[in-house]
């Protein structure tokens, strides 16, 4: 699993690649916490490169969303693909979070 971070306007874009599973979810969470400063309210996950996510990874997304909400912001999900998209659908995450086909569309909607 790799994450690249990029500031775009007032949002931090986290591009997640590879797998987030029980074995590396804590590293995923640590990288997110380290990358977020107090000022950022919006976090957009570019998930076009995410190949696999288990409930351990979903738990990290949820806890990160709670942090962003406490700052008056939120997270946005973008570009989920293939079987990962099905995992989000089953988990109800598409009703929990706004989801967009592309990262740019997510940024325009902040």
């Amino acid at each position, binding site marked *: 699993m790799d994450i690249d971070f990029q500031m775009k306007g007032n949002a931090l874009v986290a591009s997640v690649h590879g797998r987030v*599973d*029980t*074995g590396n979810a804590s590293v995923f969470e640590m990288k997110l916490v380290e990358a977020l400063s107090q000022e950022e309210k919006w976090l957009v996950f570019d998930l076009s490169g995410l190949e*696999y996510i*288990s*409930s*351990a990874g*979903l*738990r990290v997304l*949820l806890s990160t*969303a*709670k942090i962003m*909400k406490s700052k008056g912001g*939120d997270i946005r999900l973008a570009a989920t693909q*293939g*079987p990962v998209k*099905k*995992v989000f659908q*089953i*988990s*109800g995450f598409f*009703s*929990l*979070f706004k989801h967009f086909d592309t990262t740019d569309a997510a940024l325009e909607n902040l």
Partner: protein
Amino acid sequence: MKISKTQVVPVSVSLPSRVENLPHFITPVLAAARALFVDEDRCHDLELAIEESIVNIINYAYPDKEGIVRIGCRREEDCLVVCIEDEGIEFDITAADAPDLSSDVSSRKIGGLGIYLVRNLMDDVRYRREGNRNLLELVIFLHPKEMKE
């Protein structure tokens, strides 16, 4: 279900209930699934169901100390059946309550989501308690094109 033909896929792995052993449980089962022409999307579902099932064993069957987990798989007619066994605390994932998927972010709890994924990604999930063992079977249907060998 009446079984007229059972084809044993040679997978049998027995290892301690540790997160770092997950790949050792998963990899041989996926190899067996691919040998039966299960497509990559279904292999993904199977991998996720195995991870969630074994993590559940680690957390609930063996909460205080690690124990042995066994995984194997076999073919039953038009199904691939993955068997996961432990000797821990009785836990029937097929009887667990579904998580509340309607609550908002602030009140949403993640507990139970792993089991819910297992039940929704697999074509069938069977559980039985035999003596001191939990026996879980994850079933995926092999589509007609996957039956051609």
